[in-house]
């Protein structure tokens, strides 16, 4: 029992440190998690780390949460998963909560307001460049290109005309269309074989 508690504490502290010192979001965190949990603590192997990364990319939610849950579970079961996940979340929570209570006063300072006006343009460009990078790494197939182009146009129209359609609807549609194309292809292949 004491041993298990010690393990949970160690998981919590390790992931708390990872959450506290990694800037730049989930993907930046992956290399720090690998360094801490695979190289130093030997909690998971390099291959397992690759496996979690692949899972993280095809499942929803923050990548860092996926990794923390996986590692925690490997080391100490469900309780371990909870300890690691809470550990990685808590630093963000404390820091952002403090900022949230101060931000409004902070924005009233004229210089800060000016800087944030510039930041608004910067962040929009940042989103655009993240999207462009993802596009470069995307599967080059014709189907993927058509879906990306359709989603781009649809989302742009939704924004311009302020239509009340959630991007979730587009995602569900894309998933359904892709599944339908696959099923039709599957059937045709099955027919030829028979």
């Amino acid at each position, binding site marked *: 029992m004491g041993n298990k508690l010690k393990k949970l504490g160690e998981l919590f502290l390790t992931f708390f440190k990872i959450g506290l010192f990694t800037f730049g979001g989930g993907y930046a965190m992956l290399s720090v998690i690998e360094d801490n949990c695979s190289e130093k603590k030997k909690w998971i192997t390099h291959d397992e780390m690759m496996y979690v990364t692949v899972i993280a990319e095809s499942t929803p939610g923050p*990548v860092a949460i996926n990794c923390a849950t996986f590692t925690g579970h490997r080391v100490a079961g469900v309780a371990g*998963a909870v300890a690691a996940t809470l550990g990685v979340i808590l630093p963000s929570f404390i820091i952002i909560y403090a900022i*949230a209570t101060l931000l409004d006063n902070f924005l009233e300072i004229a210089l800060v307001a000016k800087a944030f006006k510039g930041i608004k343009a910067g962040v929009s460009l*940042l*989103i655009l460049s*993240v999207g462009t990078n993802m596009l470069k790494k995307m599967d080059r197939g014709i189907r993927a290109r058509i879906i*990306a182009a359709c989603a781009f146009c649809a989302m742009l129209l939704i924004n311009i005309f302020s239509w009340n359609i*959630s991007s979730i609807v587009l995602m569900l549609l894309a998933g359904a269309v892709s599944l339908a194309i696959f099923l039709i292809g599957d059937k045709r292949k099955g027919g030829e074989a028979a």
Partner: protein
Amino acid sequence: MIYLQLFLGFLKVGLFSFGGAYSAIPLIRDIVQEYGWLSDEMLTHMIAISESTPGPIMINLATYVGASQAGILGAALATVTVALPAFLVILLVVTLLKNALENKYVQAVLKGLVPCVIGIILATGAYMTFQSCVPMAGDLAVDVSAVIIVAALTAAMIGCKAWRKKKLSPIMLIVLSALLGLFVY
């Protein structure tokens, strides 16, 4: 009531954000507009702050939106909710559904989802960039300062890649845009 809205809203974000933090931004934009929680202006401020503070961006944004709407309880609720689907999915995958992700039907759905998410992120970025240059869409009044900032940042991004063979890091981009804001406005 606000707690229920925060829970449902961030459950949607947690469930549909495939492919990292930036796929969550269009979703978070959806819900903060739907419930009238934050303006686009405040949202971009928070994206910048989330990029420049440690931790997962999605968690940072959830904490902020929750805190701004319903104090510390709201912050805790939104944060836990946005992490919950990722947590449960991993537990499911490692315990019960070891091969679920290799299933050909799941793969077929993902093949459609991923390009769709990329299209949505690109459209959101393009629209928000346009909007910061032309804030009043109705009378097409161009914000010249914003156009100068966008042009300068684009030049910096291309220049950095050409000369230093490295992408301009998000934090550098934000610092640069803040400095430009100070000079131009």
